[in-house]
């Protein structure tokens, strides 16, 4: 490959950029969460430092960095230190596989607006995000504290349990789109609602061709499971942040704590991104296909490169809007719903969501099979 | 012979009816009618075999009522059954003894009655199957199958040392069979040379094999195969010195178990000599006949001597079985018409008379719960009819003329004499010793002043020694009739087998069986 070194360099740069993007989104989200929660709870929230309290985050960061680096006496230092670092990695790596916009074509080179494209994107993301469990376990064990360990156990059990429902919910999507590739999925959701099956064509022009319309049940299950996966309310049993000790990161403080936050928010972002990608057309703009956007760009800038850049920018915005909406829903839910009891949590996971997810899978498979085989 | 279903598949009917009966019995809901049902079934079975006897053609040595279906085609294994003069009477013996056994076990088996009869029927099926099978693998299947119900019969309903006895019995017989299985497989691998390519487990194809034999050398195929088979059967017979499982098994077995063991199972061994060993390995059989004759003679005398000193009635009869089976082996291996006919006849005799003895011992055991000879004495005054019947059966066992035992023993000794007067002179001592131990036992048990048990019974009305009941008389009646009938009119029974035996002897070096 002639321009391979360039590509390598650009790809590396891209990863750094995407990672930074993710990391930088966290303070914003924290601010959003604090402000949002304040509004929901009818208080002010951070409003002293900077406009609307935006600079509060920087102050917080400074505070975190300057805090005493506390290590429990009997703790396992290695694990204790490694845990927060590992908290970052899966989230970041997984997030990088998320397609955020149409590829950018500049001359002969094509640049994907995502960290890297993985053929089996879904599997990859699930696999990587599954590693988040170790963070908790390492933290819990490394702290050498009963509360930490219990929290870690609970959290990881919860994560593993809901991973099943999550995965099964996605199976419907995978079957429907016939691919593991996230970009392909996004492309498949272009245009107005239409599908062919049972020997005829169906279409509804006023609806976008989003997965949510095909997989409503799957979407619900996925979304609910995603909450559990990211250990947020109403499933934050492990932490019990509002009223108990803080779960696996009880013993943590300062910058290490911050890293856990970043990891947690990273999970939230992955969940939102996947939600967007699977069920809400990804970076696609409702009512405006990629080709149309590209043509518009070409007509505006008069060059293919321009069209490409226009398309990328527009879709990136579209993606981020949807993304933000889901993030907000995460935050909103956190401050509106009460917490489950642990056995309710497990019952919900194993006895409600898993069967429904299974049902969804079987239903989808049956319908797809019938649609391909029979004529109505 | 009409070509209806019953006549064309009568052998399968005879083999598998007991299995059906066993299943019906196993599923039968009423516990208190099991015995009656089993008796009825055994009579049906007897009827079926009588039907076979009626249609049997005794003027030919060919295999009759043949049925042959492929079973495992790849190895040429088939379901191949047929009957000829050698097996017909053993079939009859099996089916005749069955109702007698069931009736004899009426009271002695009082727990797990259903299981017992199921086992008995399965056993019958296995025994009939091994008598009728003309396919090596089929035969082996039945042969091994017969061990299983016997194992349970001794192991569940047996005496105090039943586990020891049953394990001994099982391991002894199994270890022989393993060699036989090897030999069967070896022979199956030889068969392509006579069938023209395909492997075959059919006995008729085995007969056609010419297995190389070199006299005096042990490691030739025929000799090795011969001993593999012969050992398996010798254990079953049992031939001295492989007999020690028998007394234990007999002593521990319940009465019907002993009857079927002595009556039929031991015959499986001797029958197989006639069916398998002698025709399949003619040179080896005649070359090594001295060995079997010696062992047979040793068995006769040894069994008699040892029987003489047994303190237990059942053990005594068991050792007498060893002695009698020695006669049969002797008769078979002298390889002449008298010996062989006599041996075949003696198989039936032994089945009837030793079976009868075991039944009688069972009857007395039910009353007194003792088998120790020294505790008896003076029983003849307490139970005269029992005594008379016992003495008649004893006379049959010691081969007094006009009972069945004489005919067989006489012919065997005559055959032996033709083979070698010296051997006959030794074997004839068995006649004396046989009388000695049996009469010694009769004297101790029945005669003399009243012994411990009779005295105890006289004082205790609860355990009074009542004479034979009607049921027991009915059990013994067929045995007595057979003893006298077979003693008076041996020809009526030997006629069925003479042609086959002649055929075997005349074509011993080149044996083959036609299929009718």
């Amino acid at each position, binding site marked *: 490959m002639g321009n391979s070194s360039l590509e390598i360099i650009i790809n590396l740069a891209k990863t750094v950029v995407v990672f930074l993007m993710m990391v930088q989104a966290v303070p914003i989200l924290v601010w959003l969460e604090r402000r949002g929660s304040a509004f929901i709870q009818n208080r002010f929230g951070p409003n002293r430092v900077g406009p609307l309290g935006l600079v509060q985050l920087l102050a917080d960061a400074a505070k975190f960095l300057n805090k005493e680096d506390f290590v429990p006496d009997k703790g396992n230092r290695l694990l204790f230190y490694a845990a927060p670092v590992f908290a970052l990695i899966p989230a970041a790596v997984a997030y990088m596989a998320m397609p955020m916009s149409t590829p950018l074509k500049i001359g002969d080179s094509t640049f994907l607006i995502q960290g890297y494209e993985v053929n089996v994107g879904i599997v990859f993301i699930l696999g990587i995000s599954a590693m988040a469990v170790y963070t908790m376990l390492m933290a819990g064990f490394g702290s050498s504290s009963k509360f930490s360990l219990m929290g870690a156990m609970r959290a990881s059990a919860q994560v593993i349990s809901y991973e099943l429902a999550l995965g099964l919910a996605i199976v419907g999507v995978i079957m429907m789109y016939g691919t593991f590739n996230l970009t392909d999925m996004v492309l498949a959701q272009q245009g107005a609602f239409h599908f062919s099956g049972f020997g005829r064509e169906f279409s509804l022009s006023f609806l976008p061709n989003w997965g949510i319309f095909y997989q409503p049940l799957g979407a619900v299950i996925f979304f609910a499971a995603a909450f559990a996966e990211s250990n947020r309310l109403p499933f934050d049993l492990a932490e019990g942040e509002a009223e108990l000790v803080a779960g696996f990161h009880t013993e943590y403080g300062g910058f290490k704590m911050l890293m856990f936050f970043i990891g947690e928010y990273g999970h939230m972002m992955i969940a939102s991104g996947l939600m967007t990608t699977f069920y809400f057309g990804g970076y696609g703009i409702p009512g405006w296909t990629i080709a149309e956007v590209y043509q518009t760009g070409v007509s505006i800038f008069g060059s293919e490169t321009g069209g490409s850049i226009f398309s990328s920018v527009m879709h990136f915005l579209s993606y981020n809007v949807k993304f933000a909406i889901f993030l907000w829903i995460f935050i909103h839910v956190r401050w509106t719903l009460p917490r489950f009891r642990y056995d309710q949590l497990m019952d919900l996971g194993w006895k409600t969501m898993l069967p429904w997810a299974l049902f969804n899978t079987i239903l989808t498979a049956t319908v797809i099979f019938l649609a391909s085989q029979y004529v109505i | 012979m009409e070509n209806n279903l019953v006549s064309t598949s009568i052998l399968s009917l005879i083999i598998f009816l007991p299995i059906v009966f066993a299943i019906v019995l196993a599923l039968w809901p009423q516990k208190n009618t099991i015995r009656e049902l089993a008796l009825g079934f055994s009579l049906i079975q007897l009827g079926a075999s009588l039907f076979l006897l009626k249609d049997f053609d005794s003027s030919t040595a060919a295999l009759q009522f043949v049925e042959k279906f492929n079973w495992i085609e790849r190895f040429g294994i088939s379901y191949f059954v047929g009957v000829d003069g050698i097996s017909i009477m053993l079939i009859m013996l099996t089916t005749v003894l069955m109702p007698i056994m069931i009736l004899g076990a009426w009271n002695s088996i009082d727990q797990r009655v259903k299981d017992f009869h199921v086992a008995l029927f399965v056993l019958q099926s296995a025994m009939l199957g091994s008598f009728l099978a003309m396919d090596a693998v089929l035969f082996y299947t039945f042969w091994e199958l017969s061990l299983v119900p016997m194992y349970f019969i001794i192991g569940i309903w047996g005496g105090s040392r039943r586990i020891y006895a049953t394990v*001994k019995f099982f*391991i*002894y017989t199994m270890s022989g069979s393993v060699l036989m299985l090897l030999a069967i497989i070896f022979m199956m691998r030889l068969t392509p040379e006579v069938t023209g390519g395909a492997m075959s487990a059919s006995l008729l194809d085995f007969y056609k094999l010419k297995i190389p034999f070199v006299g005096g050398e042990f490691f030739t195929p025929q000799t090795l195969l011969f001993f593999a088979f012969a050992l398996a059967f010798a254990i079953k017979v049992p031939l001295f*010195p*492989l*007999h*020690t499982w028998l*007394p234990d098994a007999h002593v521990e077995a319940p009465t019907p178990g002993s009857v079927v063991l002595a009556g039929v199972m031991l015959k499986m061994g001797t029958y197989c000599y006639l069916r398998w060993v002698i025709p399949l390995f003619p040179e080896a059989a005649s070359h090594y006949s001295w060995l079997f004759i010696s062992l047979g003679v040793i068995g006769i005398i*040894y069994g008699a*001597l*040892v029987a*003489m*000193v*047994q303190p237990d009635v059942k053990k005594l009869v068991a050792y007498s079985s060893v002695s009698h089976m020695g006669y049969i082996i002797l008769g078979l291996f002298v390889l*002449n*018409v*008298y010996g062989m*006919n*006599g041996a075949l006849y003696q198989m039936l005799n032994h089945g009837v008379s030793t079976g009868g003895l075991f039944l009688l011992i069972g009857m007395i055991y039910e009353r007194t719960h003792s088998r120790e000879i020294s505790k008896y004495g*003076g029983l*003849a*005054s307490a139970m*005269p009819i029992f005594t*008379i019947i016992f*003495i008649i059966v004893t006379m049959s066992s010691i081969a*007094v*003329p*006009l009972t069945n035992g*004489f*005919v067989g023993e*006489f*012919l065997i*000794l*005559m055959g032996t*004499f*033709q083979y070698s*007067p010296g051997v*006959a*002179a030794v074997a*004839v*001592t068995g*006649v*004396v010793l046989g*009388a*000695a131990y049996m*009469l010694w036992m*009769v*004297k101790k048990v*029945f*005669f*003399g*002043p*009243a012994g411990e048990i009779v005295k105890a019974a006289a004082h205790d009305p609860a355990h009074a020694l009542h004479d034979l009941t009607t049921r027991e008389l009915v059990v013994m009646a067929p045995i007595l009739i057979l003893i006298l009938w077979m003693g*008076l*009119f*041996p*020809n009526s029974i*030997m006629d069925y087998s*003479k042609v086959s035996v*002649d055929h075997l002897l005349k074509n011993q070096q080149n044996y083959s069986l036609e299929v009718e």
Partner: protein
Amino acid sequence: MNHQALIAILLLAPLVGFLINGFRFRSQNYIAAGSIATSALIISFICAVILFFELVGMSPESRTIKAEFFDWIAVGNFKVNAGFVVDQISSIMLLIITGVGTLIHLFSIGYMHHDKGVTKYFSYLNFFIFNMLILVLGDSLLTMFVGWEGVGLCSYLLIGFWFSDSAKAAAGMKAFITNRIGDAAFLLGLFILFMSFGTLNFHELNALAPATMEAGWMGAVTLGTLMLFIGATGKSAQIPLYVWLPDAMAGPTPVSALIHAATMVTAGVYMIIRLNPLFVSAPNTMMVIAIIGAATAVMAATIGLTQNDIKKVLAYSTVSQLGYMFLAVGVGAFGAGMMHLMTHAFFKALMFLGAGSVIHGMVDEQDIRKMGGLKKYMKITHWTFVMGWLAIIGFPLFSGFFSKDEILWNAYSSPRGHIGLWIAGVVGAMLTAFYMTRLMALTFWGKSRVDQSVHPHESSASMTIPLIILAVLAAVSGFVGVPHVISEYLGHIPNFWEHWLEPVIRKLPEVELQSVTHSVSEEWTLMGTSVVLALSSATAAFIMYTKKLGSADKVANAIKPVYDLIDNKYYVDEFYFGAIINPLIAQSKKLWYYVDVNFIDKMTYAVTDFTQNTGKLVKTLQNGNMQQYAMYISLGLVAVLSFVLMR
């Protein structure tokens, strides 16, 4: 009425009697049982008489009546029918058996009337007669053997009739087993003959008997006949198998009379006479027979001298008399043997029945030392017994005189005879005269030594009538075969006996006959010697046991060792038990213990132990340490890999 039916009735009548009585064996009605049994015998006797006269009516050469009923055993060349034949020899036996049998049955009614098992007793008796008839009528050795064993069985049952006495049951068993030893030899003889001649039929065998005399011992005929003779020694109580007969006296006395005196025990002699052409061909066998017969005659007679049981005396006397018969046939005097058989049947049956009458009258007392002077209590018994006594001691013109004299003369004069045999015979006769006179003297004559509580009485008519009939027969039956030398003086009474038997008796070869010549004077001399010796010995005995009672003891004390030897029956029983039976049982126990229990089982245990020990050994590898298992696996893998690579 055709012959076959006659023979069938003859045979079946006792069988039917046996069955009837057998099925009602619990009945104690002795009249019913006795009359059923006796009438069965009478039917048989009538048939026998009819058959006899049928024979008489035929020409001497063709005097045979055959009846074949069914094929019994037919295997290969071997064919035996249930065939029966009535000829000169068997017809005489028939008459003796049925005749004497009837009388003894009759006697038994009275003798056994108090016994609980009387019906069983009569059924056994009938069954015995049935078997005996088969024995004598059978036309082949095997058919004879059927009866041969059958009478043994009956003898066993009847000796052990009072089975609750252990000794009596043992006596029965002893009889059967001793007989079985003979039977085993008989079977061997039968095989030898069948293998040499291809038949067991008497007529065919006799026809096939080789014309030339067989020398040596291992020839088929010699060996075969020897074996048959061993069988005969068992049945007819000769040395060495005679031991059972004295013990057999444990049975009821009429049984002793019938079986152990008149009929069964003579079966051996009968068999030899039946096969006389064959035996003639085997001079060595004949020699053995003669020697054994003479020896038995003398030895049994000596034992008879010391016995105190009335029946035991008679038993040894029987053994001795049977010895005479064997001596006769051994020297080729088959006719004389047969005649002695008959006369003996009469007088010995008579004496046994007489003894029975005495025992009955003495309420089961058998010891002659406790008798004496019974003459006045039981007159008929005494006088009939005297007839028997005269006959047995060979008092001239009584039946025993003729037959015994004939035997003695033949023992001397026959080409196969010897002076030694004659001397033995005469000694035997002397001893016989002595102990029989002793018996008479101690029982009937002299002073009564009867216990005060016992009141001897004469028996009932059913018992005395048979005695009288037999006494007459014992007295006069000798006249059917009067020797020539005597008949010349008695008005030429023809020798019916010789004429009757001539066609079926093979004469000794001419060569031998011509080698010896004897004058009439020799015969007279010998006869006179023997008679004088016998009578003088009888007189001596009479004096010793009636006039000088103590003298016998003095004599006994004078020859104490010899007396003890004889008194203990030469320790033969003790010898048999000590040398054969007890060691056999002891060795059997050892055999069982060492071979079965300790060798074969231990061997098999060794196999199982080997398996178990191997298992235990391998078990140590299976120590539960799974890492070690994994190590074995990997080491195995390494081995396989190295093998694959290095190959």
